[in-house]
């Protein structure tokens, strides 16, 4: 068992793709990490030696990735609205299923805790549930009034959370798809009247492993959204009653946006900030309003994933690099 110490985080590896990176996810075993890039491709990286295999099949950028529970399949969701299931462990992974799933961008794909279901959300404001192993559509329902930016299954396996541009988080009961409650994350919505700009949104949702806390990440103080002047913000809610318990802000990051947040464990939640202030890993706990540790990254980051058991963080960077950092000395 690795003893984590996030204050000792450091970059272990960096591997270069052919185009600026967009997203990244670890496989369940942590043996691989998959990234996506602005040339519409995916890259499977072997963590042991950095060997890269390129996957082609999307006609647009890919923001949404998730592995199945056994790790032999990856599902990617593209901005063309397409879901692709990949046989990700093969020497040259193949697309084993392609589904035209959404009208417009897919912004989030997640696998349910039991691995049976897949959820996809995006700009068509519709939530779609899929049978993870066959791609059969199980349910769909119009869920939000604006683009849906993020989704997360609650660890109890009974609930789904979705967040939109306006900072509205919906909690859905999976058995009958009824709306249980909404959480107010409107501070993540930073419209700017002078620029006539709609900006912000719940860019990422995460839930603590024990299911007690909800994290919503994005940006606030969008004084100049067109000029990338906005600050990172992470909101912490209590699952039991949906109450906002903490607004985690960060000093000295005038151009920051949290692209993703991941619960490292029940005590620590991690987020990655991109934007004009550069790439920064931020670590928060329940007692402090501001982060208890931050780690600068060599280049602006756009996505992040954590493999907690191995103590690794993967970050996808504009400078075309996938970086693997250690969360231990």
């Amino acid at each position, binding site marked *: 068992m690795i003893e984590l110490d996030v204050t000792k985080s450091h970059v272990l590896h960096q591997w270069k793709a052919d*185009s*600026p990176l967009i997203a990244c996810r670890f496989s369940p075993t942590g043996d691989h990490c998959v990234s996506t890039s*602005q*040339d*519409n491709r995916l890259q499977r990286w072997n963590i042991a030696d950095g060997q890269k295999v390129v996957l082609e099949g999307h*006609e*647009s*950028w890919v923001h949404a990735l998730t592995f199945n529970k056994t790790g032999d399949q990856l599902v990617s969701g593209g*901005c*063309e609205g397409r879901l692709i299931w990949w046989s990700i462990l093969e020497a040259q992974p193949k697309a084993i299923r392609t589904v035209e799933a959404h009208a*417009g*961008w897919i912004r989030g794909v997640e696998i349910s805790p039991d691995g049976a279901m897949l959820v996809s959300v995006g*700009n068509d404001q519709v939530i779609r549930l899929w049978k993870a192993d066959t791609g059969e559509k199980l349910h769909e329902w119009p869920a939000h009034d604006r*683009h849906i930016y993020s989704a997360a299954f609650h660890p109890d396996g009974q609930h789904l959370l979705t967040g939109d541009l306006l900072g509205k988080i919906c909690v859905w009961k999976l058995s009958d798809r009824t709306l249980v409650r909404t959480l107010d994350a409107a501070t993540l919505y930073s419209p700017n009247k002078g*620029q*006539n*700009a*709609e*900006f912000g949104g719940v860019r990422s949702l995460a839930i603590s492993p024990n299911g007690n806390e909800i994290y919503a990440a994005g940006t606030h103080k969008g004084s100049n*959204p*067109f*000029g*990338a002047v906005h600050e990172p913000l992470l909101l912490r809610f209590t699952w039991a009653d949906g109450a906002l318990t903490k607004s985690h802000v960060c000093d000295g990051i005038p*151009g920051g*946006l949290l692209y993703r947040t991941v619960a490292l464990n029940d005590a620590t939640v991690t987020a990655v900030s*991109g*934007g*004009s202030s550069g790439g920064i890993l931020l670590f928060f706990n329940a007692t402090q309003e501001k982060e208890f540790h931050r780690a600068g990254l060599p280049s*602006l980051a756009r996505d992040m994933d954590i493999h907690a058991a191995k103590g690794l963080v993967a970050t996808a960077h*504009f400078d075309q690099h996938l970086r693997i950092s250690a969360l231990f000395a």
Partner: protein
Amino acid sequence: MSNRARYACGSIDHALSRRRFLGASGLLGASGLLGGVASLPSKVAGAIPKNDYRIVVFNMHGGLSQLESWDPKPSTNTGGPFRAIATSVPGIHISELLPKTAKQMHRLCLLRGVNTAEDDHGKGAYMMLTGRRQTPAAEYPQVGSVAAKMLHDDQTGLPGHIIITPGGGGGRGNEAAYLGPKFNSIHLGGDKPPQNSSKPDAIAQEAEDRRHLLRRKINEQYLSQRRSAITDAYTHSYEQALKLMERREVFDVSKEPQAAQDKYGNSELGRQCLVARRLLENGVSFVQITHSNYDTHNDNFNFHIEQVGEFDLAYATFIEDLAERGMLEKTLVVVLSEFGRTPNINLYYGRDHWSKAWSVAMAGAKVVPGAAFGQTNKEGTEVIDGQVDHGDIFHTILRGVGVDSSQSLIVDGRELPIADPAAEPIWKVLV
């Protein structure tokens, strides 16, 4: 350059503020909405024949991305996440953000080889609206002022040059340069009628009529001895304001059937387009609609989804509506910006200013429909065919509404070409 007219007194020494001019009689009347006389009208030699053509300019403020609109480069390093879609013209593809516009492509003409070589907002806007580079030595009139002078019939009772802009409105612009303040714009705020264009309830009509009678009498007395360019401008402003008040309903989109309002969409831009159509129907020669904002250095793609999506519905409906009403044959609709946006995608998913290879769209009047003129390279970084600039486009706009852009105005004895003589119309896009 002098922008003074030659009137009976032979000078403008008698020029004085409007408030001072009217102050003696205590009259301000309806001209509050037409304030801001900024320059003096000039005498123009020769009668200019009017025609019944109209111009509408969509000013995509901040710099619309050509890659997210008229010249997509999907699956390239610069293409971004959006795909290209087929249009009603085989072989011409535009961004998937414009699905409704794609169905109107047979009515549009794209200029894909625009190179204006100016990445500054203000300078770029000046160039696109005047057809010239800004210099300290001269001020040139914007296309709206030229259209008002060359096309507008004063008998309509409405101004010839109207700019619809988000937010506040009221007052006049200052775009006419040597053409004189008569051809400055009236600004409409959003989809609202001009400010102060209704008579206060507290003032009875009879009293209002008496006030204007007195004003005219004093004016006449004054003008009989001291008429000048500026006094004419004042008089024109007041009389135009009164006519505009009488025709205030033209600006009221609620007069349109609900179906028409629904068709244009529930957005400020949709309502502005509907106002524009009503203005055209009632004889206004030039309407500029500002759609803001496209200056997307950050999060370009999310912003363009929102902005272009709103534009697509309103614009496509506008084009279709004009065509169905038989108005497109006499109305030139131009979609321009101060520049385009960089093919390069920056660190924060943004695109910056780019004037070397971008696009303008035209439709209607004497412009060839269903065409794309000019071409950029594979990644959209430079023009490889059919390069044009702001001067060429200015000529083309005027020619597109039947105005000989090679002619000159004689102002104070000086010959002033309407359009830059160094440029010329893009003949291939004109019928």
